[in-house]
């Protein structure tokens, strides 16, 4: 087991940059972090009918996520057990069964090996097909239409894993009576940076907005007067940040769910559905849905920008981003379309916000080729010692400002615990103690 205690010191807000570059640490992450955590697989709306499938990834492992005839969803490694061929090479589609093109072994929708060519002649009927299906994802959980899976039989239940973060997740996932659906098609692109830069920023970093995204506002707003006001607002609006179980979220305290940042159509629709939205999770939760979020380790979304993504790791220095736009299931076409276009224009590879985020991460990674650069500790001390719990009665560790790095420290704490090979019980134990101490010291 790697000793990472030297590398990340959440209690001091210090990070050693080698965790973003070391190939051994990366391989350990695949085993200790990604193979043990709950990872996002797919959303209901991607699997409309029996046989509907999408290829998803759990870190670097391709998995087929398939709608079963009984309506349930199963997932299995997209790798044939005979000689390892990728069973299905389409990104998505509708299938009756999956046949490996190399030698023709065939699998049903559940990923069971159902046919082996020349089973008698070649295998003398001695092959036990039940042993040779592709590796199944043993645990798949449906949280309000969001399917998450984990390879780890010992991982806590998804609810327990999520903890207080459920409040923020449901503020998005459970916002409307008719739920949400994804705009058809994922947007996928590659950024040469470590996955933690992206995951951490969406968990904890409201602080970069004024500097990194100034020009995005210039694109959205013509009137310099309004521009100045918006910029001022960014600096003055109060906010909150949540941290728990490695997850993180930050948001402003806004008096209203409007404006939506998408446009008039959505504004009008939201206004009309205000009661419904408040009813489902309470006004406080509804109003909190305006910020950044990461469910540990690599599932993130932005509430009012209606973008949701997974940061798939691709080696220590690269990620593959898979992003989707989410819209209210029940909203009319004009509303859904307005949201779709506004999200494309702000958060996508050509989005006026997104491009500048990527520029930061790639440059950081580039600089880390340097020997001295890899020896200089990063500073994650914003708000250190000012952590709070239950601010405004919100669940869990919620501190009284959104400009802090509490959630970043929380994320690296969880990362370090997992990398150290601690059991889930040990981790839960430790977290309890840490929070109690925090309360006392507070």
């Amino acid at each position, binding site marked *: 087991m790697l000793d990472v205690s030297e590398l990340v010191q959440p209690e001091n807000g210090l990070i050693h940059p080698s965790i973003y570059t070391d190939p051994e640490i990366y391989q350990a992450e695949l085993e200790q972090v990604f193979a043990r955590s709950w990872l996002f697989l797919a959303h209901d709306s991607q699997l409309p009918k029996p046989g509907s499938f999408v290829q998803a990834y759990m870190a670097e492992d391709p998995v087929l996520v398939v709608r079963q005839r009984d309506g349930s969803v199963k997932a299995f490694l997209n790798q044939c057990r005979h000689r390892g061929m990728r069973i299905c*090479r*389409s*990104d*998505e*589609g509708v299938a009756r069964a999956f046949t490996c093109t190399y030698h023709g072994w065939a699998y049903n929708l559940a990923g069971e090996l159902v046919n082996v060519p020349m089973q008698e002649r070649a295998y003398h009927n001695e092959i036990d097909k039940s042993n040779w299906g592709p590796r199944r994802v043993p645990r798949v959980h449906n949280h309000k239409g969001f399917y998450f899976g984990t390879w780890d039989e010992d991982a806590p239940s998804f609810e327990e894993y999520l903890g207080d973060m459920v409040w923020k997740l449901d503020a998005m996932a459970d916002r409307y009576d008719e739920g949400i659906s994804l*705009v*058809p*098609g*994922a*947007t*996928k*692109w*590659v*950024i*040469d940076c470590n996955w933690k830069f992206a995951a951490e920023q969406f968990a904890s970093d409201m602080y970069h907005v004024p500097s*990194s995204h*100034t*020009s*995005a506002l*210039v*694109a*959205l707003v*013509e009137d310099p007067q309004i521009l100045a006001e918006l910029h001022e607002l960014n600096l003055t609006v109060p906010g909150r940040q949540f941290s728990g179980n490695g997850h993180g979220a930050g948001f402003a305290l806004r008096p209203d769910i409007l404006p939506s940042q998408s446009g008039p159509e959505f504004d009008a629709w939201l206004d009309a559905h205000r009661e419904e939205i408040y009813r489902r999770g309470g006004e406080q939760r509804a109003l909190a849905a305006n910020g950044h979020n990461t469910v540990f380790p690599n599932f993130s979304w932005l509430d009012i920008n209606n973008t949701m993504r997974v940061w798939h790791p691709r080696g220590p220095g690269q990620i*593959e981003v898979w992003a*989707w*736009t989410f819209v209210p299931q029940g909203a009319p*076409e004009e509303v*859904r*379309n307005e949201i*779709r*276009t506004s999200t*494309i*224009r702000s958060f*996508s*590879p*050509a989005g*006026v916000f*997104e*491009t*500048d985020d*990527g*520029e*930061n*991460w*790639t*440059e950081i990674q*580039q600089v880390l080729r340097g020997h001295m650069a890899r020896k200089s500790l990063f500073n994650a001390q914003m708000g250190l010692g000012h952590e709070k719990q239950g601010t405004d009665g919100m669940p869990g560790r919620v501190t009284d400002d959104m400009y802090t790095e509490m959630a970043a420290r929380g994320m690296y704490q969880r990362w370090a615990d997992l990398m150290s090979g601690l059991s889930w019980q040990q981790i839960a134990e430790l977290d309890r103690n840490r929070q109690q101490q925090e309360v006392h010291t507070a």
Partner: protein
Amino acid sequence: MTTATPDTRRPVDPTVQHQIEQFLYREAELLDDQRFQDWLELFSDDVHYWLPTRVTRTVRERSLEVAGPEGAAFFDDDKTFLRGRVRRLSSGQSWSEEPPSRTRRLITNIRPVELADGTFEVRANFHVLRSRAERHHDTFFGERTDLLRRIPREPGFQVARRKIVLDTTTLLAPSISIFL
């Protein structure tokens, strides 16, 4: 990729071909020279500038390969937002283009047809090479289908519709902070 029906489509003569080619070269030049304001002039106020996403599917399902109007896209802009993008690129704070990228647009295989209403539907292949910072390189390639309208002043045409299709699914670039 094309809407008009065959009978309403007429090939163009060498002179029109020459005009259209020079127009598209001119447009590429303005982008490579980063003269974004001048570039904007080449687009009609009702322009639709669109780059849908693409997935890998079987031959049988090829019609579903490129996303439709209701699907995910890289660009889905009107003139107003194109203006906003240009404003941003000129702000000096558009970090993914500050310092600016160096770009080169190879526009080839230009195939215009004249439609019944006197507009031109032009399909062209493109290969856009981009380098930025010290050693970063990206390459974008695919096909553009433009709808061109004649205008009574220089440079003689306007882009009224542009659909860009990349020949990739996963974009092997950190961003498309340029125009295609």
